[in-house]
C-alpha cells in the first residue's frame, strides 16, 4: 500500500500548477463566479482548453490511437484536482474530454470518431448531457422523449430538462426511446445530436443558485440522421451506465473544498478567531470529511487504474464527496456570518456551488440505494 504520488506525478502537478498560475487571467475570480456553466467561464474555457491542448494536456488520458498519451488514471486525477481546485477553467469542456470522448471511443463508429475526437481533443466542441426529463429524474429509465425511425432519419419529439451548458453546446449527448412500445431500460438509444438542427428550442428557468438559468430543451419533429446514433439501437442503457460511471467521480470536489477551507482558516486568522477552540474544532471536522472524500475517490481511481469494472466504491466516494462539499459550504456561512449573503463574495460563490452537490448527477439517496444493494447486499422487499 502506497499513499504517496509517484515522483513523476508530483513533478507534473508542479508543472501544471505553474502553467495554471501563469495562464489564468487577473479577473479569474470574477469570471468563475457562476461556475463552469456561467457565460464568462464558458467563453474563457475555449481559450484555456486550446492552450491546454497545445501543451498536450487536455486529453493525455486518452489512448494514443486517438491522439492521447495513454496517461494513467492517476495522471488524469492530478489534472482533475488541479482544475476543479481552481474552479474549473475548462468550463463545460471538462465533461466533453472526461466522458463524451471516451464514450465515443468505446461505442462509436469510425465516422463518429473521425468527426468528433480530433475536435474534442483540441477543445473545440462543447457538449451537453440530455438525460433528465420532467418525468424522469432519479428514475432515468422512465424517459419518454421519442426518436422514431423514418428511413435513414430519426424524428425526435419530447423534452429534456436541467440540461447544463445546453445554451452553449454544439452537440447534445441525448438519450431517447427508439422503441415506442418499450418501457424501462429496454428500447433506449443514445444520439450524438447536433444542436443546430431545426425544431430544437430552449426555455430558460431562472435558477436559485446564481445569476444564471437552468434550461429545458424541446424537440419538435427534429430530424437527425440515423448515423448519429451511438451504439446499438434500443440497447443504449449500456451507454448510459458507461458514461455515469465516468461522470460520478469526474470532478475532484474535495480539492476545491480543501482550498476553500484553507481560505476560511486564513479569514479566521485575520479576524483573530483561529485560536478559538470551537472554530478549530469546526475546521478540523470539515477537513476530516474532505480528506475522507479524497481517499475514497483515490480508491476508485486505484481500481480504475487496475482495470476493475465500476464497483459500489464509486457511489461511496460520491456520498462522501457530497458530505465534504456541504460541510465546507455550511462552514462558509458559519464563519463569515451574514457577510456571506452578499453576492460576488468568494464565500457566497462557494456556498452556492456547494448547495446542489447532493442532487446533480444522481442524488445522494440514489447513491445510498446503490450502496445498500450492491455493497451491503441488503435484501430487497
Amino acid at each position, binding site marked *: *500500500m*502506497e*499513499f*504517496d*504520488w*509517484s515522483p513523476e506525478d508530483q513533478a507534473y502537478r508542479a508543472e501544471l500548477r505553474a502553467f495554471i498560475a501563469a495562464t489564468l487571467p487577473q479577473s479569474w475570480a470574477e469570471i468563475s463566479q457562476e461556475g463552469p456553466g456561467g457565460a464568462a467561464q464558458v467563453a474563457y474555457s475555449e481559450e484555456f482548453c486550446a492552450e491546454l491542448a497545445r501543451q498536450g494536456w487536455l486529453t493525455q488520458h486518452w489512448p494514443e490511437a486517438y491522439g492521447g498519451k495513454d496517461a494513467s488514471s*492517476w495522471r488524469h486525477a492530478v489534472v482533475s484536482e488541479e482544475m476543479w481546485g481552481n474552479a474549473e477553467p475548462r468550463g463545460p469542456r471538462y465533461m466533453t474530454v472526461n466522458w463524451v470522448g471516451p464514450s465515443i471511443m468505446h461505442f462509436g463508429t469510425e465516422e463518429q470518431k473521425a468527426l468528433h475526437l480530433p475536435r474534442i481533443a483540441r477543445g473545440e466542441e462543447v457538449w451537453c448531457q440530455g438525460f433528465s426529463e420532467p418525468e424522469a429524474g432519479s428514475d432515468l429509465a422512465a424517459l419518454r422523449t421519442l426518436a422514431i425511425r423514418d428511413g435513414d432519419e430519426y424524428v425526435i419529439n419530447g423534452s429534456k430538462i436541467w440540461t447544463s451548458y445546453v445554451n452553449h453546446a454544439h452537440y447534445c449527448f441525448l438519450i431517447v426511446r427508439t422503441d415506442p412500445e418499450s418501457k424501462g431500460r429496454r428500447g433506449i438509444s443514445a444520439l450524438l445530436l447536433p444542436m443546430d438542427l431545426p425544431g430544437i428550442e430552449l426555455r430558460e428557468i431562472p435558477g436559485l443558485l446564481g445569476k444564471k438559468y437552468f434550461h429545458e430543451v424541446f424537440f419538435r419533429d427534429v430530424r437527425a440522421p440515423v448515423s448519429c446514433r451511438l451504439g446499438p439501437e434500443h440497447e443504449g442503457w449500456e451507454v448510459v451506465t458507461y458514461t455515469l460511471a465516468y461522470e460520478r467521480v469526474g470532478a475532484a470536489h474535495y480539492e476545491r473544498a480543501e482550498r476553500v477551507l*484553507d481560505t476560511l*482558516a486564513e479569514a479566521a*486568522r485575520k479576524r483573530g478567531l*483561529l*485560536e478559538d*477552540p470551537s*472554530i*478549530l*474544532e*469546526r*475546521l*478540523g*471536522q470539515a*477537513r*476530516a*470529511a474532505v*480528506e*475522507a*472524500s479524497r*481517499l*475514497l475517490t*483515490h*480508491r476508485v*481511481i*486505484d481500481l480504475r487504474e*487496475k482495470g476493475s469494472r465500476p464497483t459500489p466504491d464509486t457511489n*461511496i466516494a460520491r*456520498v*462522501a464527496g457530497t*458530505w465534504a462539499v456541504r460541510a465546507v459550504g455550511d462552514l462558509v456561512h458559519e464563519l463569515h456570518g451574514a457577510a456571506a449573503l452578499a453576492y460576488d463574495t468568494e464565500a457566497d460563490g462557494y456556498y452556492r456551488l456547494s448547495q446542489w452537490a447532493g442532487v446533480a448527477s444522481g442524488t445522494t*439517496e440514489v*447513491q*445510498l*440505494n446503490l*450502496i*445498500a*444493494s450492491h*455493497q*451491503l*447486499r*441488503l*435484501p*430487497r*422487499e
Partner: protein
Amino acid sequence: MDLDLNQDQQAIQDAVEALLAKHAGPERAVELQVDDAYDHALHQALEEAGFLEIGLVDGAGWLEAVLVVEAVARAAGTVSIGASAVVAPALLARVPRGAVALAGGEEGELIRHAVQASCALLDGGEEAILVPLEGSPATPVATNYVVPMGRLPGSLPEGERLGPGSGELLRRFWRLAIAAECVGAMRAALDLTVEYVTNRRQFGRPVGSFQALQHRLAECEVLVQGGRWLTLRAAHRAASAEAAALAAAHTAGTALRVFNEMHQMTGAMGFTREHPLHIWTTRLHVLRHELGGARLHRQAAARARWLHHTTQGVGRGN
C-alpha cells in the same frame, strides 16, 4: 499510489486473523467479561508470534502494525493492542512485557487496563513518562462497558521521562491507535448489524429491506470506510500530527453514531448481553473518549494544518 495491500501486508493480515480465530472472538470476550479479566493468553500468543513488534521490524512498519490492531479490534480481543503494538513501540523502540495503559495525565481519569497493565505511558505535556505499575497500584472502576477500567493513584513512582517532544509523539501515535481500534470495532459492529437486519423479519419481510434502515446503514458504511482510509494513510505517514489527528477526529466522531445506529437497528435484542453486538459497541464508547475525544482530535487536526502547533492533550501538563 497503490491502495491494495501488498503481498507481505496481506500475509500479515491473514496470519493474525488465523491466530485470532483460535484465540479471540466474541465468545471469548464474553467469557472474560464475567470478571473484568484481561486476555493474557491472547496477549502472549500475539507477542510470541511477533505481532506486537511488527511496527519495529525491518521490512514492516506502522501500516502493518495498524493492520494488526484493526484485526484484533475486529475480533474483539481483550488486550491493550493499540498501546502495545503501536504507541509503546513508537515511544520506547521496544515492546514492554504485559499490558500497557495509556494515561492523559488528567487527575482521576478513567484508564483502560489500568489495573492489569504492567506499565503506563503518561502524557506529561512536553514529555511522555513511562511509569512502572508493579504491585497493581490502580483501583478498578466498575462501568457498564465491557472494557476493564481503573484509576491510577495520585502519587506514582517517578517513572522514566522520555525526553522533550515525547509528549507529542505519544499523542500522535495514541491517536493512530484509537483510530485503528475504532475502525476494527465499527467494521465488526456494522457487519453484524447488516447480518441481523437481513435475517430478522417483521411485517412479512426482512427489516433490512426497509429503505429507512438501508440508507442509514449505507451512510455508516461510507463513514467506516472513510475512517479506515484515513487511518491507513496516517499509519503510512508514521502518525504525522495532521494525518493521525484527522484519522482520530473522523473515527472517534463516527463511533457514537455507529453505536447509536447499530443498537437502534437491532431492536431489543441488541440491548442484551446474549447478542454479541455490545462487545464491539461498548468499546467504541470507551475509545471515543480517549485523549479528549473527537473534539480535541478535530482541534489537533486544525492546529497541525493552520497553526503548525504541536497538539494539546487533556492533562495538567498541557
